[in-house]
């Protein structure tokens, strides 16, 4: 009896006792951070280092760097920036945009990425996930799933939200998980940049198929959106990724931290 009870407790508590993750997302084009709305870049801002340093000083947990035009031009140009950042900023970096084979992935890790994400490459050939996962471990590879609603289904988009893959987002997530992906970063294209909250229906819809850590992205603008995404996923979501709230100085990481602490989302 003892074994069974303690096993259940472990299962239950390991999920809850990991700290809720706050992740800053930097969309980068021509070496500048850009503000985006529904995945369209519309305003060039400062260098990535400026925001990365600012967020690091405020106590952010992780950073995502997305070279948003890379897959279109089939190259990722963030390497030198990542190397520079890794000399000053000591938190995990997830890097992506334009990573399409094992050589690109290897180069990204050598330049200082801890994790990479794939989107376009995974839609074209899901084997990329298995290759990276087998070589560098499941923790090293995330799927960036970008969903757009068509009638009552969510479809996976690629090339930074420009192209319709015709694949349902659920099917893409299942395939990625079957191939050893370590994390799903799920973003609603319709809600991205709107600050009106996450697409809760989307997250409710995919919740029961998720078997790896899930990061919610697209639409975060107010503190109580955290509570709502927790409810929509029955507390399953591992963290949130956001951009506009710090690009527009809407709130500080400190405020987010306090909100999480006050609401018993472990920090």
């Amino acid at each position: 009896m003892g074994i069974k009870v303690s096993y259940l407790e472990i299962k239950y508590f390991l999920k809850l006792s990991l700290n809720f993750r706050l992740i800053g997302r930097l969309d980068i084009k021509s070496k500048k951070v850009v503000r985006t709305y529904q995945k369209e870049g519309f305003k060039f801002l400062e260098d990535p280092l400026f925001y990365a340093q600012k967020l690091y000083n405020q106590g952010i947990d992780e950073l995502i760097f997305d070279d948003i035009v890379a897959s279109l031009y089939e190259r990722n140009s963030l390497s030198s920036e990542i190397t520079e950042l890794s000399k000053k900023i000591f938190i995990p970096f997830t890097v992506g945009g334009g990573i399409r084979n094992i050589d690109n992935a290897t180069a990204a890790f050598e330049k200082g990425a801890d994790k990479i994400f794939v989107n376009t490459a995974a839609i074209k050939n899901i084997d990329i996930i298995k290759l990276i996962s087998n070589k560098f471990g499941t923790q090293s590879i995330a799927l960036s799933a970008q969903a757009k609603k068509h009638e009552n289904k969510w479809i996976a988009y690629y090339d930074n939200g420009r192209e319709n893959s015709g694949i349902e987002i659920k099917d893409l997530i299942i395939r990625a998980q079957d191939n050893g992906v370590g994390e799903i970063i799920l973003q609603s294209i319709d809600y991205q940049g709107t600050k009106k909250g996450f697409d809760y229906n989307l997250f409710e819809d995919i919740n029961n198929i998720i078997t790896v850590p899930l990061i919610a992205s697209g639409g975060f603008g107010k503190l109580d959106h955290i509570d709502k995404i927790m409810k929509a996923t029955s507390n399953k979501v591992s963290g949130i990724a956001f951009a506009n709230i710090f690009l527009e100085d809407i709130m500080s990481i400190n405020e987010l931290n306090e909100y999480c602490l006050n609401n018993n989302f472990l920090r």
Partner: protein
Amino acid sequence: MKNLVGILNYRLGNLLSIKSAIEYLNYRCKIIDNLNNLEDFSCIIFPGVGAFDQAINYIDSNDIREKILYIFKKKKNIKILGICLGMQIAFDKSEESVVKSKGLGIFSGCVKKFNYELKPPLNGWAKLKLSNNSETKNKYSFLQDKRVYFTHSYYCQTEKRDEIAYIKHNNFMYSALTIKDNFIGLQFHPEKSGPAGIEILEQILSN
């Protein structure tokens, strides 16, 4: 400039972060290329990338086991710092090993696989808790409640006398920081744990 820190390279991924963190603390740091000069370093790091079998295979095919155990036993002024996998290889064995590789045996016991509802790895932040060890408690009190970054699928439970800090999930606990003589094992990544991690690294290197 302070003493020289060396990082072993099992050729399995990113060593840049740990090197950057050490250099940030004004230590000289190099990736070890000549394994005959291990005694030139004030600290030798086993980094936390790759898998148990790959790391042990590298260690044994390059005659590192004997050299490291010599330093562990005879050269107590040289620190050996194992991070994540680098800590796990210091145990007797691991459930991760498919070919039953033999660990360094500095800590006794077997490294075990997590069993919980999401697929491993456990990936994220948690707070350190200080072990109730009268000899070390005061010296390491700065570790208490430090928030650090973990990414691992396997965990260690060290003998209590070697454990300095642990992680607690309800009533399930595993070792986060263990020390035996000059070997220091960290399950978390100090080079990825923000300012708290840098402080811990600095304390370890300067102590």
